[in-house]
C-alpha cells in the first residue's frame, strides 16, 4: 500500500492512445477527455480482474498469479465471451512460443522495433499476466496472418466493442 507509486495508478496514456488508434480510421481524431476516460477504464478493468485473481491465490495460499488465475477470474466476473477466446489464444501462444519470459524480455530489448514492449512490463502487477499481455503486443508486427487475425478478433476487437456504447455517449455533448 505504501509503495504505490504515482505513475503506477494508470496505464501509460501513449500506449492506450495507440490501441485506440488501431481500430479507428486514419483521419479520426480523439479528444483529450476521451483519452483520459479510456485510460481510467482500462486501468480499472485491469485492477478489477487482477484483484479477483489475487483473491483466489490468497485463498489457495499461493504467491504467483498465473494465466489460469486470470482466466478463471474473468469467467467468475461474467466476462465469459472474453475468457474463451483468450484461453484458445493462450494455448496457441504457449504452443508456438515456448521461450520463458526472461529470454523474451532479453530478446525484446535487443531489437529496436520492440522498444515499447518492455515498458508495459513494469505496470503489470502479476508477472504471468504481463507475460500474456506481452505476447498480445508481440504478435502484431508478425507477418503471420492467422495469428494476427486471431489476436485482433479476440483482443482488440472484442475489447473495444464493449467500450463503444460509452464512447458514443461521451462524444454526443461535443
Amino acid at each position, binding site marked *: *500500500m*505504501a509503495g*504505490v*507509486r*504515482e*505513475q503506477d*495508478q*494508470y496505464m*501509460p*496514456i*501513449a*500506449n492506450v*492512445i*495507440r490501441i485506440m*488508434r488501431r481500430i479507428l480510421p*486514419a*483521419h479520426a*481524431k*480523439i*479528444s*483529450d477527455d476521451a483519452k*483520459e*476516460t479510456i485510460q*481510467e*477504464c482500462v486501468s*480499472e*478493468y485491469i*485492477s*478489477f480482474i487482477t*484483484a*479477483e485473481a489475487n*483473491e483466489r491465490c490468497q485463498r489457495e495460499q499461493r504467491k504467483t498469479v498465473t494465466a489460469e488465475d486470470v482466466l478463471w477470474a474473468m469467467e*467468475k*466476473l*461474467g*466476462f*465469459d*465471451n472474453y475468457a474463451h477466446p483468450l484461453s484458445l489464444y493462450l494455448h496457441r501462444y504457449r504452443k508456438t512460443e515456448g521461450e520463458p519470459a526472461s529470454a523474451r524480455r532479453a530478446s525484446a530489448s535487443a531489437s*529496436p*522495433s520492440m*522498444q*515499447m514492449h*518492455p*515498458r508495459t512490463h*513494469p*505496470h503489470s502487477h502479476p508477472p504471468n499476466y504481463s507475460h500474456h499481455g506481452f505476447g498480445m503486443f508481440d504478435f*502484431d*508486427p508478425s507477418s503471420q496472418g492467422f495469428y494476427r487475425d486471431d489476436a485482433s478478433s479476440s483482443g482488440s476487437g472484442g475489447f473495444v*466493442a*464493449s*467500450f*463503444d*456504447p*460509452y464512447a458514443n*455517449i461521451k462524444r454526443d455533448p461535443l
Partner: protein
Amino acid sequence: MNCLCEKDSGLFSSHSTAPYVLGCPSWATSEFEVQRSSMSRSLSSKVDVLPQQCHNSKTFNFQFQEQDASSTKSTDQSYPEVGTVQSGQISVQHSSTDSTLIRNEGKSMGCVIRSFMGSQDFPFPPPLLDHRPILAHIACHYADPCYSGLVAAAYSPQSKPVETAPVRIPLQLDFAEEPIYVNSKQYHAILRRRQYRAKLEALNKPIKDRKPYLHESRHQHALKRARGAGGRFLNTKKQLQSNHTPGNIAESKMHHIENYRDGADVSYAFNSDARNMQNDAADKGGGTTQQPLFVYM
C-alpha cells in the same frame, strides 16, 4: 424524520421469506422475475456457506445506505429497494434498445424497471453488461468520499445515519439518483474495489490532479526540440538515438530503470501526439501514408 423512521423499521422487519406485496402490478412482475432469477443464480452458485453469510452482511449494509439515499426522494423508489433486499441479490438490468440506454444515461425517471436473467448463449447482451459495471466504477471513482462517509455511518448507531445522510445527498445525486444495477457476479468485486480505492485515495491524495509530465528536465528538453509542420519532431534518426540514450544512462547510473521509462512515456505522451504517431508508424514497419496530425494540448 418520520418517513425515515418508518423506512428503517420496515427495513429491519423485512426478515420474513414471504414475497412482498407491491402496489403497482408492474413492480410485482419485476419482483417475480427477481425471485426467479435469484433462485436460479443461487442454484448455480458454488460459493461456500460462510463467505456467503459475510457477503450477505455486506449486501445488507450497503442496501441500508442506498435505502437512506432513495427514501428521501420519493416513496415509489423505495419499493424496488425493498424487493432487492428480500431477494438477497442484485438483479441485472438489461435494455435491448439504444433509446433505453440513452434514457438511462440521461438519468430520466423510468416508471418500469425491466430485469431478466441474462443467458450466456446470447452474443449481444454481454457487451452491454460489461458496459454497466464500467459506468458503476466511474461513478464510484468520483463518489468515493461519499461512500466512505456512508460506510462510517453504517457502523455507527441508528440515529447518526439519519443525521449524516442528508448532508451527503448532493454528492450522490450525480450518480445515485436511481440505484445502479450491476452484474450479480461482479457485485462483491465492485465493493472490494470501492474499499481499495478509498484506501488508495487516503494514501495518495496528490495523485488526484494528474500531472502533464513527471520530470521537469525532460519536459524542458522536449520543448526545446525542433518541430516540423504539424508539430512533429524533426530528424527521425536522431529521435531513435535519443530513444536509446536515456535508457543506457539510466541503466549505467541509476537502478530505477522503470521510473525513467515511465517518465519517458508520460512526458512524451502529453507533449505531442505526433511522436506517438511516428512510433506507431515505426512499429508497423514503415510509414506508407503520410497523414497530417494535429496536437491536442
